[in-house]
Structures are given as C-alpha cells and as structure tokens.
C-alpha cells in the first residue's frame, strides 16, 4: 500500500477533513495533512490508542489523527484549537467533551521548523475502573476501621453510641441505632451532622415499644423494608430526621443481627441515593455493629453474674467494736478479680469483744475464692457454738475435712483466728490460735515489733490437728498485725528475692502511732513498691489495734472501701 493510497482513502471512508479557510491570524497555513514519504505515518497514528494533534508554535493545527478527531470532533487543520471549538489542551488529566483524557506535550523540531505534538489518551474507562476500585477499597477500609472501633467498647450504650458516630458521615448524614425493646421500651441513639469541622453530635432516648415505626419492627424481624414504604415519613414521625426536607432525603433501615434474633435496627438518612454497593456496605456495617452490641450484652450479663459472686466472696467490712480499731488491705493476685485465696474478717461477740481471722487457702483464683467462702461460712456458723479460738479451729478443721473428702478435691487452709476482749486495765486481751499460718506481729507502744510465737498444723488435712494458741496483751495504741504469705514471699528487689519477715518487721518499726487502716495500707504500699510491678500471690493484711473504748469510731468507716465502690 502506497502512502498516496493511505492519504487518499483516509481509512474506513470517513469524511476527509478538508482544509478549512486558513486561520490568517495564526501563522502560516499548512493545508492538508502532509503525507509521509518513508512510513505510512497517518496509518500508524490512526491506529494509536492515543490521539495526536500537531500544531505550530502559535497553536495552529498542522495535523491530527483519527482518534484525536473522535475525541475532539471539531478539529480542522489551519485553525487553532479554540477556533475549532475545543478547549485548550494542558499537560495531565482533563475533561474533553464527556471523556476524561490524559495529555502529553512534545516539542518536535524537524529541519529547523518547530512543531508541538499533543498526545491525547482517552482514560475514561480506566479512571472509572480505578474509581470503582478506590471506592471498593474505601468501603473495605471503612468496614475494617468500624470493626476495630466497634470491638473496643464492651458496654451496650457505648457500643451503640460508637455505631451511630461511626456511621456518620460515611453511611448517611443521620444515623439511628435502636435496640430491640426490653420490657416494652426500646432505647435509641442518633448521630447527626458530623463533618470535617467536628464530630457528629450524639443524642438518644427511649421509645415505647408500641410507638416504634413499622419499618423498625420489620427490620427487627429480619426483613429489610424497601424505600417505598414511606420510610422517611415514619422516621420523621419518630422525630429522628429533625427539620430535614422529606422530599430530598433517602432513608434505609437494616437489622443489626444478633446471635439469636436481631439485636436492634440501624437506620441512615442521606440526601443522595444508595446504590447496591452502598447497601452492601450498610449491611456489612450493620453486621459488625450487631456483633459488637451482642458481645456487649453478653459481657454485661456475665459481668453481672461475676459481680454478684465476687461480692459474696469479697471480704466484708469488719463491724465496729468498742476498744478495737480494724485495718485491712487486700490485693488479689489476679488484678482483674477482686477475690482470691486469702480471706479475713471479724465478728462481734454477744458477750463483748470480737472474733477475727485471716487465712489463706491452697490454690488460686476463683476456685480458691469459692473455698474461702465455704470456710468463712463455716466460721460464721461454728462461732455460735464455740468462741474459744483453738476449739473453734478444731471444729472448723473437721468440717473442712468432711467437705473436701466428700468433694474429693483435697483442699486445705492456713489461718490465724483470734478473740479480742477488753482487758480490765484498758487495752485488749487477745487469744490467738493458729492453723499452720504465718505468726502475726505486734507493734508495741515504744515502736518495737515482736513476732508472736505461734505455729500449728494446716486446717483440712488431718483429723484432730495440733492447734497452737497463745495470749497476747495489747495496751491502748498497740497493734497486732495478721498477714498472708503473699506479703513475706513477695518477690522484688533487683533480682526477685523474697521480701521476708525481717523486712516486714523493719517496715513496721516506729509505726506505733499509725491508726490500724494506715498500718495495713503501709504494708500494702511497701510490698507494692518492693514488687515494682511484678506478679504476686494474693496479699492480705489485717490489723487489730487497741484504742481507748471512749475514742470515737464514728469516722472510722467514713471512707468507703474502694473495693466496695466497684
């Protein structure tokens, strides 16, 4: 095929662009496309995906290819682009007509004459594809972010608030989460108005189950109401859409799926329509929000049970008894629990004075805590028939032995059990009995610290164990301190050595003026510092201080125990 043929036939019989009247104002008119003598250049160009427009330095078109003409139908040789009704080309992406194009500009100098070649590529489809991809990625990113944020709160209200806050503005300008009604009432949260200027405002309320919009009931049944069901009107009636123009708002509602039935419903309102992709994203978000709410409800139910059980097993505030000041500190090994294998307590005796105890059971965690509950209940019952500490411990031993044999779990306990009664000359007279527990220490009025000589055998191992007993006199201002092995065996220092009894005695020296609660706190603090963040066993401290019977105890328990606060 000769060049002349190509030039003449102009591939495919399209109308040959004829040279229009030369544009006098813009350089030398060149006339028709210049035929190549070496290559069928026009053919090559016409089969490029890129369109080519060649102009002289002043912008007058010298030549163009067929794809360029398809993109810019008005092109004519001898005119400027403006003269052909085409916007000027710039390097980079731009819109030409209804197409998206990307342009390159190349300066060509051939035989002293300079031309400008514009390569114009139609990228409309590519852009659409990459827009779709970006949108898809954006949706995936949004859902991933939502999953992460929705997984954080384990509280129902907070999860619901997080869901509506996250939904705005990506899913809609208004988002409402309504939880399935309980006892005839449904709680809801709404977020509206969030944009770059600030986070969405969240409010909420309660709706009588009878007043729920029909579409919500439908969603709670697992159906997806269609937009035609006057959704906007229903939600405007519920007061959720504010003063939005109902003719220009699109509303959708989807169920928040739960493990059994729908946990609630999510509705979004926006001024643009939702396409199928948007609906998929809405449903994906609802699935995640539903799972988060479901988890929060589950957590609440379980936490309620755990709290009730913990409260029944946690140490109780000792009763106020004349002449006695109590102080206690307790740090369970598992810090998320408030209970453990150490226990302490006190009971007022009908004949005056009090019975008090501190002990430690074998094992750790919840099992151990349950066992301490059994022991405390045993003591509570047995003290009514026996108030002598040694005999009471023997009775307790038999009872524990019977239970552990029946259950076959081989648990045992150590404890110090004491009775305090006012001494005739002031102060307290203590009778202490020990079942294999660490001996208590006494802080004397002169600041010295004595260790009480008291041993004995474990409780719940053999029938009729040897129980040691001893009498200790406390003058007013003197304190007897019971503690568990979590104190002396706390590992700290540089290399994790045990705290030991010597350090405890040193830490208590000179503390004779401290009230009992401050003493107990001091031990807890010293051990805490020693541990320096290391793990530890249960730590319990119980201080019994002799005070003059007249000294007021009215403020003694004014500070609510922080463990009771939770």
């Amino acid at each position, binding site marked *: 095929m000769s060049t002349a043929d190509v030039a003449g036939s102009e591939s495919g019989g399209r109308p040959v662009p004829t040279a229009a009247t030369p544009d006098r104002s813009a350089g030398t008119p060149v006339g028709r496309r210049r035929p190549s003598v070496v290559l069928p250049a026009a053919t090559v160009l016409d089969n490029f995906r890129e369109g080519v427009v060649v102009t002289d330095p002043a912008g007058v078109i010298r030549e163009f290819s067929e794809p360029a003409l398809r993109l810019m139908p008005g092109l004519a040789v001898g005119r400027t682009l403006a003269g052909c009704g085409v916007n000027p080309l710039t390097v980079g992406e731009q819109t030409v007509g209804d197409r998206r194009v990307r342009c390159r500009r190349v300066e060509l100098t051939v035989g002293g004459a300079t031309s400008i070649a514009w390569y114009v590529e139609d990228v409309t489809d590519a852009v659409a594809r990459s827009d779709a991809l970006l949108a898809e990625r954006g949706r995936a990113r949004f859902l991933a972010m939502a999953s992460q*944020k929705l997984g*954080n*709160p*384990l*509280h129902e*209200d*907070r999860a619901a608030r*997080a869901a509506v806050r996250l939904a705005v503005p990506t899913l809609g300008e208004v988002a409402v989460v309504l939880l399935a009604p309980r006892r005839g009432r449904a709680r809801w949260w709404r977020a509206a108005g969030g944009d770059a200027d*600030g*986070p969405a405002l969240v409010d909420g309320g309660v709706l009588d189950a009878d007043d729920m919009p029909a579409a919500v009931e439908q969603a709670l049944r697992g159906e997806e109401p269609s937009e035609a069901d006057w959704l906007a009107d229903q939600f405007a009636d519920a007061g959720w859409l504010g003063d939005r123009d109902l003719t220009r708002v699109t509303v959708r509602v989807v169920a928040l799926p739960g493990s059994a039935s729908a946990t609630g419903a999510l509705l979004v309102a926006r001024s643009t329509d939702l396409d199928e992709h948007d609906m998929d994203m809405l449903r994906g978000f609802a699935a995640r929000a539903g799972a988060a709410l479901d988890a929060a409800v589950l*957590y*609440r139910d379980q*936490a309620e049970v755990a*709290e009730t059980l913990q409260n029944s097993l946690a140490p109780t505030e000792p009763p106020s008894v004349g002449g006695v000041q109590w102080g206690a500190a307790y740090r369970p090994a*598992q*810090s*998320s629990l*408030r209970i453990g294998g150490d226990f302490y307590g006190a009971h007022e005796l009908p004949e005056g004075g009090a019975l008090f105890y501190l002990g430690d059971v074998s094992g750790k965690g919840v099992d151990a805590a349950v066992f301490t509950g059994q022991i405390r209940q045993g003591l509570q019952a047995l003290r009514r028939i026996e108030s002598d500490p040694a005999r009471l411990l023997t009775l307790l031993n038999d009872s524990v032995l019977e239970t552990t044999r029946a259950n076959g779990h081989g648990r045992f306990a150590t404890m110090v059990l004491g009775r305090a009664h006012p001494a005739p000359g002031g102060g307290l007279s203590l009778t202490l009995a020990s079942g294999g527990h660490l001996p208590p220490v006494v802080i004397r009025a002169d600041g010295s610290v004595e260790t009480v000589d008291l041993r004995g055998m474990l409780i719940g191992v053999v029938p009729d164990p040897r129980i040691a007993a001893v009498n200790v006199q406390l003058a007013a201002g003197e304190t007897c301190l019971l503690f568990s092995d979590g104190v002396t065996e706390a590992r700290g*220092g*540089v*290399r994790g050595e045990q705290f030991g009894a*010597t*350090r405890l005695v*040193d830490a208590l020296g*000179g*503390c004779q*003026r*401290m*009230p009992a*609660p*401050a003493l107990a*706190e*001091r031990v807890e*603090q010293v051990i*805490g*510092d020693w541990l*320096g*963040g290391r793990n530890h066993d249960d730590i319990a401290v119980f201080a019994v201080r002799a005070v003059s019977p007249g*000294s*007021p105890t009215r*403020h003694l328990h*004014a*500070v609510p125990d*922080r463990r009771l*606060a*939770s």
Partner: protein
Amino acid sequence: MTAVLDRTLDGAYPDYLRCLDDADETGAIDIAVALLDYGVPADRVLLDLVAPAQAQVGEWWARNEWSVAQEHAATHVSERVVAAVAATVRPRPSRERIVVACLDGEWHALPARLVAEVLRLDGWDVTFLGASVPSPHLVSYLHRHDPRAVLLACALPMRLPHAFRAIEACRRTDVPVLVGGRAFGADGRWARKLGVAWAADARAASAVLATPAFDVPHGASFLDDAEYAGLVAARVELIDLALDRLDLARYSPPQVDATVADLGYIVDSLTAAVYVDDATLFGEFVSWMRTVLASRKVPLQTVGSTFDVMAGRLRDFPRARAYLRGAAPRLAA
C-alpha cells in the same frame, strides 16, 4: 476537743497541722467540719486547708524532718478529713458519671481524692477507685459502668511509661481519658508529649470534663524508640554495675534495700526522660533526689560516681548519656 475552733482557713491552718503531727484524726476532722459550719465553702476547705497541709507534710518528709511513718499517719488523717467533709456536704449528683483512679503503683491517693471530691461538689457523679488501681481492674470497671470519662492520676514522672500503657488500655474501652498529677510536668508538658488531655488542678479538670470532645489522641509517634527499649532491657545490669562500685559491707540490710531502691529510681527516671524525650524530667528528679539524700546525710559524690558508671555503660545511648552528664552539676548545686 474543747478549744475554740477558728473560723477562718488561715487561722485554722496551724492547728490543723498540729493535728496531723499528732495523728489526731478527731481533732483534724473537728477543725474542718467547724469551718464548714462557719460557712467556709467545702471546696476551699479541701483545696486551701487539706491540700497545702499535705504538701507541707511531703516537704517535711523530703527534708527528713518527718519519718515515713509519720507522713503515712498524717496522710491517713487527711484522708479521713476529706471523707468527713464529703459526708457533711453530701452534694447531689446532677451531672454524668466520672471515674477517678490512681494508676497502678501510685500510692499517693490524696491529691486524686481531693480532685474527686471537688468534682463531686461540682455536681459530677464521681466514683473514686483509690490508690494503685491495677489496669485490668480499671478497664473492666470502665467496660461495666460506661462513665463520661476517666481521670487518671500519676504523681511520679518515672512512672510515665506505665501511665501511658494504662491510658491506652482505657482508651480501648472508648472512654475518654483525662490525666493529672505532677508526673505529667508542672505545666502538663509530658501529657502533651504523650498526646493526652491534661488538667492542672481540680477546677481545671471540671472545666475540661464539661467540654464535648476533649480526648483526641494524637502524636506519640516517638514511642517506638530503640533507646527507650534498650534502657528497659539494661535496667538490672545498670543497677548491678552501680552496686558493684559501692562498699556494701558498710551498709545495714535496710540501707542496702534503700540504695537498691534509689538506684532503681535513677534508672527509671532516666528511662522515663528518654521515653518523653526530655532531659528536664531527669534534671528535676535529680534536684529532688539531692534534697532527699542531702537531708539524710547520704554523700552525694557516691551518686555522682553512680552517674559516671551508668554513663560509661550507656555508650550507645546518646540521649541517656547526655541526660546523665547534664544532670551531674545539679548534685553539687
């Protein structure tokens, strides 16, 4: 007590200090309650009587004029006074629930407790969880009770790395966090560094809590810091190196423990300074330590040579080394 109780804060202050000195709980409470009866507002009793008296106690301890046992007994009395004031006033909560807690290892609960009570007087529904609250317990509490915000108190700058971990744990419950306490710097600069909202005092805290969205996490990109991680790993080795240089045979066992604890504080403060990338954290610690040690007749040149030993080991730790060198003159100052 039969003495006539003073009607003004200034007049009552010396008597109140005397009660702390005597660990006289009843006397201290009588003074505070009398002031309330005379019409002194409860927040002033807390912030202008209890708080400065407690600061005074801390100073006496630092200057070795009071034993730690005396300080502890006085703190206990202050706690009871705060409780008595709260019980007398009994504000009715009209605002949302706020949780106040001291971070794990923080035993100085009184400042946080004062903040809690002032917030209560401001109408907030406050739960005070007390001293040294373990993070897992705090987090489960937040999950369970969904408060408006949690206030975390931290007094010791050397505990900032721990504090930040606790802050992050709280944020994961989606509950906004506000911090306070001397640990974050007198002007809150280390709170800013960690990207967490900070309040200078109880009244400022109440104002911050009233703003809609105060906890916007930001910054903290510096936290993946190899030098910090290296210091944490070298902690025991640094303490051992310093101990090797001391003639421990001359020390009593409690003195050995105290020395080990002090060396731990030095390393932890240095580590915290690197963590927030600020030499002044270590400098302020050294000035404070100098007061404490000097009043206890501990020769400061042993501390100086400890710094040299540590700086020698920390050849690959440019910032820690510079902080040690930079702080050495403060020992002499």
